[in-house]
């Protein structure tokens, strides 16, 4: 039975809310990569601090979005079932711990922060997954997508804020590939409901196509930068290699942010009313007697 689509786009989460998912994803990913760098003995304080900054910026944006910012403390009231409460709780531990790791140059603290950042990102993924009003978020593939995008965008920013040496380019490439895989899986899952199918329409619009093209360009750029770094002796042509790595980082991060902004603000259609049956409107039966 064909039915006129009646789903409405969600009306309340705008770019500020998207900013939380962008900042939270990138920041979490960046903290995780920074912790790996810390374990590897690489400098990690700047990217870790930046990661915390991304998360804090994202949370600040959402603080600006909510209707009653001076009651923000109430966000902590419902840990039993609300992933938003859990996100808030994780953030309140993560940010001071991360700050300690930066201030004290502490690798263990950085590792603990990375675990919390991963948890924070998982909370964000589950926030969307629990939004039962929005089929495009409700599907299971949203969780790997949010995790992979966070890691990809964080590792991309690490190329700018940390190191763009071969291991980090490799990590970035793997993360971007994971993001591609998660995206393809996510996208193929859309279409199950009319509301989710409308998300497909959004992803076919010019801004979405541009963002996706940039994502693919980012993938190519990371691969190119890695190839460039692998083929050429370290040190030789350092400037172009750096430029390439930075470009790839910018492309991967910005394109990811673009897609995420669309995912939150534009591709989010509320579940349509679906009629399982058509009501009977009278019958004409000979047995119908006046009441």
């Amino acid at each position, binding site marked *: 039975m064909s039915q*006129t689509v009646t789903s409405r786009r969600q009306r309340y989460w705008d770019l500020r809310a998207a900013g939380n998912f962008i900042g939270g994803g990138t920041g979490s990913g960046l903290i995780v990569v920074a912790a790996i760098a810390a374990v590897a003995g690489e400098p990690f304080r700047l990217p870790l601090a930046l990661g915390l900054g991304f998360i804090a910026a994202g949370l600040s944006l959402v603080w600006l979005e909510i209707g009653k910012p001076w009651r923000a403390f109430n966000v902590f009231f419902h840990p039993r079932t609300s992933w938003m409460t859990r996100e808030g709780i994780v953030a309140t531990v993560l940010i001071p711990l991360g700050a300690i790791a930066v201030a004290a140059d502490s690798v263990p603290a950085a590792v603990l922060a990375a675990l919390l950042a991963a948890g924070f990102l998982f909370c964000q993924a589950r926030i969307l997954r629990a939004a039962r009003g929005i089929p495009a978020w409700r599907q299971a593939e949203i969780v790997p997508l949010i995790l992979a995008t966070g890691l990809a965008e964080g590792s991309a920013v690490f190329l700018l804020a940390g190191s763009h040496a071969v291991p980090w380019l490799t990590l970035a490439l793997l993360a971007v590939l994971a993001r591609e895989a998660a995206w393809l899986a996510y996208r193929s899952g859309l279409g199950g409901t009319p509301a989710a199918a409308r998300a497909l329409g959004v992803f076919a619009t010019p801004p979405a196509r541009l963002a996706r093209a940039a994502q693919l360009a980012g993938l190519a750029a990371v691969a190119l930068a890695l190839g460039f770094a692998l083929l050429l002796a370290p040190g030789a042509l350092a400037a172009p290699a750096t430029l390439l790595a930075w470009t790839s980082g910018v492309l991967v991060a910005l394109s990811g942010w673009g897609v995420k902004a669309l995912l939150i603000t534009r591709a989010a259609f509320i579940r349509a009313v679906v009629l399982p049956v058509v009501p*009977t*409107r*009278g*019958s*004409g*039966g000979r047995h*119908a007697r*006046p*009441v």
Partner: protein
Amino acid sequence: MSASAAKGVREVPSFCYNCVAGPDLMTVRVENGIATRIEPCHQAEAIHPGLGRVCVKAFGLVQKTYNPHRVLTPMKRTNPRKGRNEDPGFVPISWDEALDAIAAKLNDIRARGLLNDAGLPRVAATFGHGGTPQSYMGTFPAFLSAWGMIDYSFGSGQGVKCVHSEHLYGEFWHRGFTVTSDTVRTRYLISCGNNAEVSGGVCAVRRHADARIRGVKRVQIEPHLSPTGACSAEWVPIKPKTDPAFLLALIHAMLFEHPRSALDLPFLRDRTASPYLIGPDGYYLRDPASGKPLVWDEITDRPVPFDTAGARLALEGRFTVADAVTRGPDDEIRPQRDAAARTAFTAMADAMAAHTPDWAAGICDIPAGTIRRIAAEFLENACIGETIEIDGETLPFRPVAVTLGKTVNNGWGAYECCWARTMLATLVGALEVPGGTLGTTVRLNKPHDNRLKSVQPGEDGFMVAHFNATSQKDWMAQPTGRNAHRTLVPIVGNSPWAQALGPTHLAWMFASDAPKEWPDPELPEIWFAFRTNPAISFWDTARIGRAMARMPFIVAFAYTFDETNHMADILLPDATDLESTQLIRVGGTKFVEQHWAHQGVALRAPAVEPLGEARDFTWITTELCRRAGLLERYNAALNRGAALVPLKGEGYDFSLATDQAHSVETIWNAVCQAATAALSEGKDVHDLDWFKQHGHYVVPFDREDWFLTPTMVRQGLRYELPYQERLLRVGEELGRRLHEHDIHWWDSQLSEYVAIPEWHDVPERWVESIRSMGADPADYPLWGITTKVMPYTTGNNAGIPLMHEVSANLRNHGAVVINATTAAGLGIANGDWVEVRSPIGATQGRAAVVQGCRPDTVVIPGQFDHWKTPFAKDLPFPSLNTVVPLSLALTDATGSGADVVRVSVRRIAAPAQAGAA
């Protein structure tokens, strides 16, 4: 109650009569002197067919009251130039100045005479929708009565926006100003575009919903899927304006494809003119001595007068009548010797023979099988021979009905539809009996409160009919009003309502293009307008607006500025629905589906104080009369009953002294007491204070009085069906009169006066009108029609934001509804801006792409295109009125036209001024 009172909460009983489907009872909740919400009148659940509820429109009355755009002081125009692009320069004035200015004009006119040199009234008045403004104009009718001759012919949509032909023919055939199904009992309902679920009011909506649960089968025949179609068991998309072919084919199927026993033969024989013999010249064969129509007596096998005792009347057959006369036009008595005669029934069957379902299928775009099935289902459900008991009376039970919608029911083709619908009911004896097709109330006959009392014996065994004279002696060669209703439309008669039911667009058309045969229909010197906006609600609104701008002195009772009062000279702010006092009738049988088992009166008392300088209409009227020297006549009119009921009756006398100006409360106190005394035959007398507490007073209304047939039986009368000898004669006489005066521009209308309607190519008239405008029909390939949504149905609601907001939940609000396949072919997607164009202009709006619309039809709901009314002017909505021409050629013999036009549709860029509606 006391707790509520302590918090400053009051619940004020009132009513809503913003559309003809009312009045309905309601409660206004008032908190600390401010009306906060409307609620149903739950106390009326037992007496009101809609369980004391009011429709969505009533919920707009709070916003209406507190609309910041209200005109709240009297105003006068300072710019003498009038027109859409002229700033009227309204400036506030005092009530004294406003009323004195009007009174001075009135006094001047009275000194010179009420009629101008052409014999036309110098004062004109127009009120809006369906007589409902009368329920909000307090004692103004007493002023109108006190004044004398007034021209009501400048319409605001009458004949176009109403079920015009039904008004005239319905009342002629069965005292049905509007016609409905006996929904509470019917089993099978053929609805040709009747939009009961949108415009039938709360009583209809409730009754039809209950009927659906009971299992009624309603088949909805209409070009697009309205809410009524949606809520029907079956939707049959029909090509616009081909309903006559469909209905005639149903008659054909019933006459030629089913045994006669499927029909109600006793009803046809005894209650109709079916047995009357038709002579070779098309007129009834009459007894030369008595002049009575002849019938064929099967016992004596010879013709006898129709009322011969003991005769067994032949329903059908062809006979030879040795000696008779016929009465032709102008009382020409024509001797008939050995005349070939056939019964009226046979004449009808002969005329219907060619109208087969297969023939109709090609015209209506409905499969012949569907037509046959519907005819068969109608017969099957008619329950011929069954009876039912109503309040102790045994009556026929014929639970099948046919109802007609607005565009089916006016303009060309409407006569055929009205006749065919009434004949379908008649064939199975389902006219005016339980379960069948019923009239509701009367307006062209009297009394208005009980139509059964209007039934009096007339000529030839029929009810009396009050036609305008067409004889050489009495025909009104000179129009008495600017639409010439008494001159051109005999059937409309000359009751107080008749003029507004004449061809009201002619008054506007003749204002600029007067027929050469008549004196220039000089415009009225004063035009009163209340609750009406013809500059929006008529066809070719630009042309109407130009005509209006030529009116020399317009007094508009103004709620906000609007497109009509933009041309006014004086604006008077009347207290609106929640601020004013009036007692009106409720119950009995009223327009549409108000069928109550009670009748009585209901009070509207001020729930809140009038805002600003707004004044109660009764106060305004009294003051106007005082200043115009009409006080005595005005009070006398009140005493006679101009404000609802005579103030003096058997056993009571609440008459007002005629030499003084009475307060609003004094007047309505007297009306309240007189009304209750009359209703209760003196047992109960309730004053205004009682009504302010209780809201309404009712007494039982006999449910048997919903049906006309028992009255017809008691008086031994026949329905004037199937053969229309009277109309045939009147048409011939009218033609002679017009031609005697060298008037030939009404000739095509004369063609409608036929004794048995047959198909003529109705839709082709609209195609032809494109050619007559010098355009190529191929450029206008689609039908443009209109429909309604309930929040705007016949209510003046366009300036109320709440109505707009809730209507936006409906897919067609403010849109151009178009079929999905057609839209795809034109590259139009849902929500795209489109332009709908006819040869006279274009209107723009967003497309609502749907499946539930014929591919050859677009639908523009409501009436918008406002350019002055606050809020409404910012709605970027299309309006069919903008593109429908005012056209004599598209005017039928009753003076009505239909909301139909051939259009083109194309996608356009969003207009620059389009707001985000």
